[in-house]
């Protein structure tokens, strides 16, 4: 594939290196001449000095035959414009923008950018995963279906401890996909799998049911009344 990367900062550099390694044809467009020089010295003449938001520069690097444009500068507005110019002027089939302000995810989607990657959200999620007390971690969003893949840690005081999955008042529409026990291999749970303290459960849920699912797996409740308290 022919891929244009706008922005030759660290992200642009390592991304391009990986894409080149996979055998793609890559051109980086970078505003800063000395960054260009460094990249060209290290990766071979793949970096063009110019503004990736300008039609002239994008025409120069043959954007009309590009299969994909990825904008990874540090500024959301520059990434937006680079993608929009690529899409509307050069009809690039796929545009990907890095965003820093997680709010912009919705804005960019509304404005026709195919994919956004929020570096802030990604880093935040990874940090949350590493915080052992964090009750629920978002692993993946399946956006068009409104589904979330989440990881939930089972605390020792949870009512779910010692119960089989069929005994849990799980909200309809949620599913436990994997149970990871500290000393055993992760396994796909059956109705008879017993939940133990400190297990990590990977579950699929809709955003609305997330709270209820968390209460079931982490809260205290009695088997007869599944209504729970945090």
């Amino acid at each position, binding site marked *: 594939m022919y891929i244009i990367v706008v922005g030759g900062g660290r992200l642009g550099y390592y991304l391009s290196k990986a894409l080149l390694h996979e055998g793609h044809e890559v051109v980086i467009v970078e505003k800063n001449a000395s960054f260009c020089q460094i990249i060209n010295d290290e990766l071979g003449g793949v970096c063009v000095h110019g503004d990736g*938001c*300008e*039609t*002239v520069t994008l025409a120069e690097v043959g954007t009309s035959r590009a299969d994909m444009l990825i904008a990874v500068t540090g*500024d*959301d*507005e*520059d990434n*937006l*414009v680079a993608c*929009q*110019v690529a899409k*509307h*002027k050069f009809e690039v089939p796929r545009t990907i923008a890095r965003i820093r*302000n997680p*709010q*912009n995810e*919705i*804005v960019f989607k*509304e*404005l026709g950018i195919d994919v956004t990657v929020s570096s802030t959200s990604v880093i935040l999620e990874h940090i949350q995963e590493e915080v052992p007390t964090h009750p629920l971690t978002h692993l993946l969003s399946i956006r068009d279906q409104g589904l979330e893949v989440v990881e939930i840690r089972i605390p020792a005081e949870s009512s779910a401890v010692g119960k089989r999955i069929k005994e849990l008042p799980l909200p309809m529409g949620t599913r436990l996909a994997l149970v990871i026990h500290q000393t055993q291999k992760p396994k796909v749970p059956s109705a008879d799998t017993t939940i133990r303290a400190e297990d990590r459960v990977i579950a699929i849920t809709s955003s609305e049911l997330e709270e209820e699912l968390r209460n079931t797996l982490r809260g205290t409740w009695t088997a007869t009344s599944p209504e729970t308290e945090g």
Partner: protein
Amino acid sequence: MKIVIMGCGRVGARLAALLDGDGHSVTLLDTDAYSFRRLPPDFKGTALVGNGLDQEALKRAGIEEADAFVAVTQGDNRNVMATQIAKRIFKVPKVVCRIYDPLRQELYSNLGLETLSPTTIFAQMLRERLEG
């Protein structure tokens, strides 16, 4: 009319003063409070520190009730993005955007954004002066 202006440079401040004089309700948004020194002492509108690319800041500036939005910061891309947020997310009826780069201006004007390129306009005016 209730008008939100993003960017309090020379043009933004001047425009705000003119509209304020015409009796409109004007709110200015700029990331740097120091730029508000350009406003005349009798300016009756509101000046807010905030980033016009941030939806919270736009809401504070009253974008939800605004009749018009104008983006005149130094950055073409910032203007383009803020204007599109005003138009597409907040459905402001009238939005105008300054874009210095004539090619980008042409593109966004084709995409249905109301845009002005001072570069094109001023070059034409200079030509008329010189040739006329």
